[in-house]
């Protein structure tokens, strides 16, 4: 029965996307001020949402994979592209004030500047497409580690990583909550 494909999956795409967009807005990460103030350490909403999602999602997916209900979907660690791309992404995200998902969601809540930035995203995607034939033979051909995970390269079990992440999250967020950030 699972995974679903065809028309059923396309209908579910809208349903799951709807849930995601709803959650982003309820988390207030559809607001420029929330996102930018994370990068100024004045508001920790973004980290609270992301770290909780990673820990809850990660432990659950790990269990579902172990039980045979799901498959891992790890992407290549193509380091040339990832290092350069992430470095650009951080700059772009702070200039825009949104990441692509929260940008799309913010347009729906009435943010005009999110819409302007989304047009920029379409242009950025276009530039990437035009540059891709060149990038593919240079940056993207430099250093590909393949579909590796942190447990793969360290030998440390996944649950240990999640326990450490959870401890880090509790320590960070209790400090943050006591300062009302």
């Amino acid at each position, binding site marked *: 029965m699972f995974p679903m494909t065809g028309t059923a999956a396309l209908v579910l795409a809208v349903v*799951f*996307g709807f849930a995601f967009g709803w*959650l982003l807005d309820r988390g207030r990460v559809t607001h420029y001020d929330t996102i930018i103030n994370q990068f100024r350490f004045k508001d920790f909403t973004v980290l609270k949402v*992301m770290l909780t999602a990673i820990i809850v999602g990660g432990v659950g997916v790990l269990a579902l994979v172990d039980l045979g209900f799901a498959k891992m979907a790890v992407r290549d660690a193509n380091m040339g592209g990832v290092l350069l791309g*992430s470095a*650009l992404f*951080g700059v772009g995200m702070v200039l825009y004030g949104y990441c692509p998902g929260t940008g799309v969601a913010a347009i729906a809540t009435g943010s005009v500047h999110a819409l302007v930035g989304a047009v920029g*995203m379409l242009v950025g995607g276009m530039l990437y497409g035009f540059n891709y034939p060149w990038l593919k033979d240079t940056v993207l051909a430099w250093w590909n580690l393949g579909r590796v*995970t942190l447990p793969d390269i360290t030998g440390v079990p996944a649950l240990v990583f999640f326990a450490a992440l959870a401890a880090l999250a509790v320590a960070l967020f209790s400090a943050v909550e006591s300062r009302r950030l």
Partner: protein
Amino acid sequence: MTVSSLSTSTAAHGRIDWSPYLVGAGIGVLSWVVFVVVAAPIGITTAVSQLSGGLAVPLVGAEAVAQNAYWARHPMRLDYGTLFLVGTFLGALASSLAARTWRLETVPAVWAERFGPSPLKRYAVAFVGGVIAMYGARLANGCTSGNGISQGLQLAVVGWVFLAVMFTTGLLTAFILFRQPR
């Protein structure tokens, strides 16, 4: 000061009071569901780059786009990722309408405090930021959702390198943009 003015304005417009931890847990549970039911982790930018291919058609012609090494693999179509994007838009729209927080925003408060009330200035920087963010997301093969959350929760190297590097350059950018003038 910001806090009190914010709460006054949100009271007038309706309010949103879900805990960010609850929202994060919700996104985590949504990840369980999508991994099992559709085997398609949450992601945004692949669909956006497919739309970029569609936008490129009037500029360089359908044939050039079809033969492009990137868009040949990611043609514009109404696939799972594109419909997820549509759903994300609709979900945020419904949430903001239900909470009565929907309102046109041209210049956000934190920006206005530092750079003044000019919408054009905000639009110009948002546009440039969008270009850079999207180009970077494609190079890194994913954004905050696809790489940060979906790869991060699988403890994939690509996800954690992405998170570490983008937070670092983001912090530097925010420091330069918002540092207090002496």
